[in-house]
């Protein structure tokens, strides 16, 4: 199988984080809440609102269409230090929110593994974090937002106002309209520090035991070695933490200084270098248990320290694969998929394992549900990665799970429609002007790769 041709000359104007696929598109920036739909008055192409391009695949792409870049629409609108309710324009990044809120003693209610995503993008993908088991998804903490449709109509959406559009827009991949502002329920903190504990585990049973023991701890996540087999199969480090309750100085974060400077050559990442990395990571934690006080930056955003770290994967880019499998089959499904990945010999640096909790998301199309989720990174090797992805997606489906659109560039229309059987109900809320390359791919309008 070869990469599909995209007839692209020169680098694309907008790339997803996985740098695949690469499509032409025209960028139209939105700077003000009144810009849309006026800026597209004389344009008849389809459009898609986008933010920081941190989703891995084509949910943030629209081949030969218009990308409405929202990052200039990043103003604060209101903040109430009594209630912690923050209202801001949708193009603000979580990093900008933290810069403002942390010195005032407030933190994000839910954060993903990077702070370089927009508020609008966090809603549209209904992102989750290390506290899913206690806090649910990001959408659970969005009390209201404004949705602007291409016909110029403006809707306030909340659980009680336009509740159907509220549900469709959370996790709605930017297809229901442009979110201009949103209100987020922040949570109080008294310190930047996290009471951290790292615990080695061997095998999924030990992981599940640790998960059970830590269900009252706010943040839990595990790194798992997917290159080892035999007695080291599914070894990993279980990481947990709570915001420190000891009062401490609440300074803003320093700006990151490291930038991955060039595209690494394709041979830089191979199975040997990755398994060495994994062994070092595992044994870096020499003791079975490590307890520490850690700043929230390295705890939540270890990779944000190096801007453009995705260049490590070279120009051809990377693919992510993230599933959730419900508890009924979570253990056998995870073991089977880990074995399949180890057998394939396709390297994965970061394999992140977590148990989702049962807090329901308000989103109609949200990805998380109770069970085990695993996220894997792969460098793109067309001959091998796509067949492996097809196998893993089929296995996920057999175990009753589903894949995360924000991480995907490969699932077929049939797989998507099995994962999200409610997609036709959702399609009724889509704005007729808005679409994405992902949506065209998984609803069968375009041939799948």
């Amino acid at each position, binding site marked *: 199988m070869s990469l599909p041709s995209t007839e692209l000359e020169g680098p694309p104007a907008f790339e997803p984080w996985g740098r695949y696929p690469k499509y032409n598109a025209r*960028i139209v920036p939105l700077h*003000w809440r009144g810009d849309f739909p006026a800026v597209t008055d004389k344009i008849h192409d389809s459009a898609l609102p986008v933010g920081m391009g941190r989703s891995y695949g084509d949910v943030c792409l629209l081949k030969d269409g218009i990308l409405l870049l929202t990052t200039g629409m990043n103003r604060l*609108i209101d*903040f109430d230090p009594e209630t912690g309710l923050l209202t801001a324009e949708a193009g603000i990044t979580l990093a900008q929110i933290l810069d403002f809120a942390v010195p005032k003693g407030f933190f994000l209610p839910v954060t993903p593994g990077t702070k370089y995503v927009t508020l609008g993008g966090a809603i549209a993908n209904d992102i989750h974090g290390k506290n899913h088991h206690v806090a649910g998804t990001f959408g659970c903490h969005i009390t209201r937002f404004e949705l602007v449709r291409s016909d110029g109509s403006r809707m306030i959406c909340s659980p009680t106002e336009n509740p159907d559009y509220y549900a469709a827009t959370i996790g709605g991949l930017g297809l229901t309209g442009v979110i201009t502002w949103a209100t987020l329920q922040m949570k109080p903190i008294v310190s930047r520090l996290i009471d951290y504990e790292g615990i080695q585990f061997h095998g999924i049973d030990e992981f599940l035991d640790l998960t059970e023991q830590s269900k009252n701890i706010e943040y839990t996540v595990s790194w798992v070695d997917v290159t080892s087999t035999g007695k080291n199969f599914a070894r990993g480090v279980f990481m947990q933490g709570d915001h420190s309750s000891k009062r401490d100085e609440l300074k803003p974060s320093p700006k990151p200084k490291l930038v991955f400077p060039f595209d690494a050559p394709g041979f830089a990442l191979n199975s040997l270098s990755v398994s060495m990395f994994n062994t070092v990571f595992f044994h870096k934690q020499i003791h079975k248990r490590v307890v520490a006080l850690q700043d929230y930056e390295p705890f939540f955003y270890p990779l944000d320290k190096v801007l453009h770290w995705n260049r490590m994967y070279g120009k051809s880019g990377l693919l992510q694969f993230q599933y959730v499998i419900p508890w009924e089959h979570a253990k056998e499904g995870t073991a089977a998929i880990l074995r399949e990945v180890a057998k394939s010999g396709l390297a994965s640096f970061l394999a992140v394992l977590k148990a989702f909790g049962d807090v329901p998301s308000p989103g109609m199309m949200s990805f998380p549900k109770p069970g085990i989720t695993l996220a894997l990174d792969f460098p793109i090797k067309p001959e091998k990665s796509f067949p492996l992805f097809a196998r893993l997606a089929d296995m996920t489906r057999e175990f009753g799970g589903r894949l995360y659109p924000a991480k995907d560039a490969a699932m077929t229309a049939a797989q998507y429609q099995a994962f999200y059987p409610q997609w036709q109900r959702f399609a009724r809320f889509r704005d007729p002007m808005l679409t994405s390359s992902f949506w065209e791919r998984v609803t069968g309008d375009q041939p799948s790769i």
Partner: protein
Amino acid sequence: MSATPQNATPRRILVLGATSGIAEATCRIWASQGASLFLVARNAEKLAAVAADLKVRGASYVGTAVADLDDTDSHPALLAHAVNSLAGMDIAYLAHGILGDQISAEQDFNTAAQIVHTNFMAPVSLLTWLSNYCVQRRSGVLAVLSSVAGDRGRKSNYVYGSSKAGLSAFLAGLRNRIDREGVTVLTIKPGPTRTAMTAGMPKSEKFADVDAVAESIVKAIDGRKDELYVPFQWLPIMFVVRSIPERIFKKLNL
């Protein structure tokens, strides 16, 4: 960043063209330091959005006036009202301006005249009032956005460039006159910066980050500098550009 101590009197800053990208980014820094701001811009809706943001970020006071600064007759009343609202003025920041359409300006004098009026005539009117206000009090900073494009006329934007060249020359002369009266005049020459004005221009992703530009401007004002090229590499670049002999320069495609 030199933050004003919380107990000090907040600095009083008048911002003309407050919804421009560079001005807004600069005001965010001042707001987080607790400054008092008076904002003037043409579009009421945009001005309200910017004012709300600055208030949330910690500005001690945010006053606004909707005005078209092309209307020079209205300047004295507008400026008097602004200075009254702020109960004085420590810094005036002139940030309004238009890029204009070079191609159309080559054919149509009215387009060219509009660019020159907005970027040169209007600031001259504002600065005449403001400089005399500051001289009377023997204090104040007048920080004005000019452009590297004013350092030498180029075929791609010489109408805009010449309006900024005129402005830079006016500021140099004004500084020469009033620096000895205790008034600082800062000429700010930003290179291409990612803002709404430059959105969609080719290679705009390579332009300077607006927050970094704003931080340099705040520092230059605090340091009472005379001239600021920002980012700093534009200083040697423009030195070279100015040094090229005209007989060679006229053949270049710049």
